[in-house]
C-alpha cells in the first residue's frame, strides 16, 4: 500500500495540483485567481505527461554505443516531452487571450470581482 503511494508520487502530486487548479477555477471569485487556477490545472497535466515517461536507470533518447539500438528499455520515451512543449505553448496562448479579456472586462466594468461584475452586468441587461 505504501509502495503504491510512494511509487507513484509524481502522479499523486499531479492529482493534487489538478484538484487545486479546478478548485481555484470554480470557487474563486476574482477573475485573475480563476486564471491562476486554470494555469495550475494545465501545469498538472504537463507534470502528468512527463511523469508518465520517466524511467529508472534509463538515459536520454540519443544513440549510445554502450547501450545499442535494440535495447529500447534503456532509453526514455521522448514523445511525451515533445507533446508537452506544444501544450506549454498552448497554455501560454490561452493565458494571453485570457488576460486580454480580463483587461477588456476591467475597462468596461471597472472590477475584477465576479459578484460585483454580475451585479453590474445585471444592471446593463435591465436597461
Amino acid at each position, binding site marked *: 500500500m505504501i509502495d503504491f503511494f510512494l511509487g507513484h508520487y509524481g502522479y499523486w502530486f499531479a492529482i493534487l495540483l489538478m484538484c487545486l487548479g479546478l478548485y481555484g477555477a470554480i470557487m474563486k471569485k476574482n477573475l485573475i485567481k480563476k486564471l491562476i487556477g486554470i494555469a495550475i490545472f494545465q501545469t498538472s497535466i504537463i507534470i502528468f505527461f512527463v511523469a508518465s515517461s520517466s524511467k529508472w536507470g534509463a538515459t536520454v533518447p540519443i544513440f549510445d554505443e554502450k547501450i545499442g539500438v535494440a535495447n529500447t528499455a534503456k532509453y526514455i520515451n521522448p514523445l511525451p516531452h515533445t507533446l508537452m512543449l506544444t501544450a506549454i505553448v498552448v497554455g501560454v496562448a490561452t493565458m494571453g487571450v485570457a488576460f486580454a*479579456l480580463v483587461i477588456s472586462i476591467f475597462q468596461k466594468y471597472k472590477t475584477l470581482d465576479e459578484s460585483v461584475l454580475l451585479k453590474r452586468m445585471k444592471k446593463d441587461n435591465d436597461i
Partner: protein
Amino acid sequence: MISSNSAALTPLILLFMAVSIPIVALKKKQIAFFMVMIATSISVIISFYNIFRVLKVGTIHYHFGGWIPPIGIEYVLDPLSSFMCLVINVIALLVLIHSKKIVEMESKIKSVPYYALVLLMLCGFNGIILAGDLFNLYVFLEICSLSMYGLISVGEKQAPVAAFRYLIIGAVGSSFYLLGVGFLYITTGSLNMVDVRSIIPHLYNEPTIIVAISLMVIGFGIKMAVFPFHGWLPDAYTYAPTTSSALIAPTGTKIGAYAMLRILFFVFGVNYVSKTLHITDILAWLSAIGIIYGSIMAISQKEMKRMLAYSSVSQIGYIGLGIGLCNPMGLIGAVLHVMNHAIMKACLFLVAGNYRVKLGHSNIFKLSDNIRKKKPWTTAAFTVGALSMVGIPPTVGFFSKWYLVLGTIKNSSWVFLAVLLISSLLNAIYFFRVLEKVYLKPIRSTNLEELNMPENNKKDEVSSSALIPVLILAIALIVLGLLNTIIVKGIIEKMIPAGM
C-alpha cells in the same frame, strides 16, 4: 501535385491567409475582406474536389513529410471528414459574404484582425476534421477555441465576460481531453487514430482506457455544449457580433460533435462504447434532457439571438441523441442534422443580424407588424428557417428528424421518440410565436395617416451582400430537403463505422 496534396491544402491555405492578412492589409483595410473571400472560396473548391475524390477512390491518407504512421503524422479524408469539411467551408463562405458591410457597421470592430481571427478559426476547424492523430486534434481544438474566444469578445459590452466564461470552461474542457489523450497514450503507446483502433481491442479491460474515454467524452461534451455543460453557450452567442455568432453557432459546436463521433466510434469502437461501457446511453439521455431544456428555455426568451442560442442547445441534443442511439439510422440522422442545423442556424442568425442592422434590435416583442412589408425577403428567409427548425416536410429539418425517429424505433427507445415529438412541438411554439408576430396580424396603426405614409410601407431591405447569402441558405434548406436521399445514399451511408 495539387491533387496529391489536396487533403492538406485547406488548413494550410487558411492558416497562410490568416497570418498574411495583418501584413498585407496593413495599409488598406478593404484588402482583408477580399483575401478572406479568396481563402474561403479556395477551401470550398478544394473541399468539393476532395469529396468527389473520396467518393471515387475511397479513404485518402495523407502522410506529412512522407513519414509513415504511426511514427508520422497523417490527415485522413474519409466520407465523414470530407463531408464535414465541405459543410463548414460552405457555411463559412456564405456567412463571410454577409459580413462585408456588417463587420464595419458593428461598433468598434477592427476588420483586419477580425478577419485574421476568422480564418484562424476556420483553419482550426478544418484541422480538427482532417487530423488523423489524437494530439493534432488537441492542437487544432485549441487553435479554433482561442480564436473563438477572440471573435466572441468583440461584441457588445457584456461580450468579454461571456468570452471569459467560455474560456474558463473551454480551457478545462480541452485540458480534460488532453488528459484523456495522456491516459490513452500510456496504455496503447500510440497517438495515431487508426493505430490506436487496432491496438485497443486487446486492452478493453484496462481501467485506464475507461478513464481516458470518460475524460475525452467530458472534454468534447463541453466543446459540444451537451446539456450539463452548455452554460457558456447562451451568453456567448447572444453578446457576440452578428458575424461571429453566425459563424460559431452553426460550426463551432458541430466540431465538438464530430470529434465525439470520431473518438467514440472510430477510435474506441462501436460495440465497446455501446454494449460494454454504455457511454452512448449516457450521452443519449443527457442529450434528451438537453433537447427539452433548450426548447423550454428558448420559449421564455424575448431576444431573438438568445432564443436561437437556447435552440442551439436543444438542436445539439438531436445530434448527441443520434450519436447516442448507436445504430445506422441514428448516425445518419445525426450527420444529416449536422448539415441541416448548420444551414438553418446560419440562416436564422443572419436574419437576426439583418434585423439588428436595420432596426437596431432583435427583440421579438418589439418587432412591428409592417416588417413583412419592409423586409419581405429577410422575413421570408426567417420563415423557411423556422419551418425547417420545426420540421415541416419539404425542408431539410424534417428529414434528419425522420431518420432520428427511425433510429429510436429501431432501438425501441420510446422515451426518446416522445422527446423528439415533444421537442418538435416546443420548437413550433417558439418559432410560430415570431411568425405570428410578423405575419398574422393585420397592419394596424393608431391613425390612418400614419398607415398611408409611404415610408412606413416602403421596402427597406438590407444591402444585397447581406441579403443574398440569407436567401441562398433559405433556398438550400428546401433544395437539400428534396435532394436528401442523394446525400444520404451517396455520402452518409458510407460513413457508418464497422460493427454498427
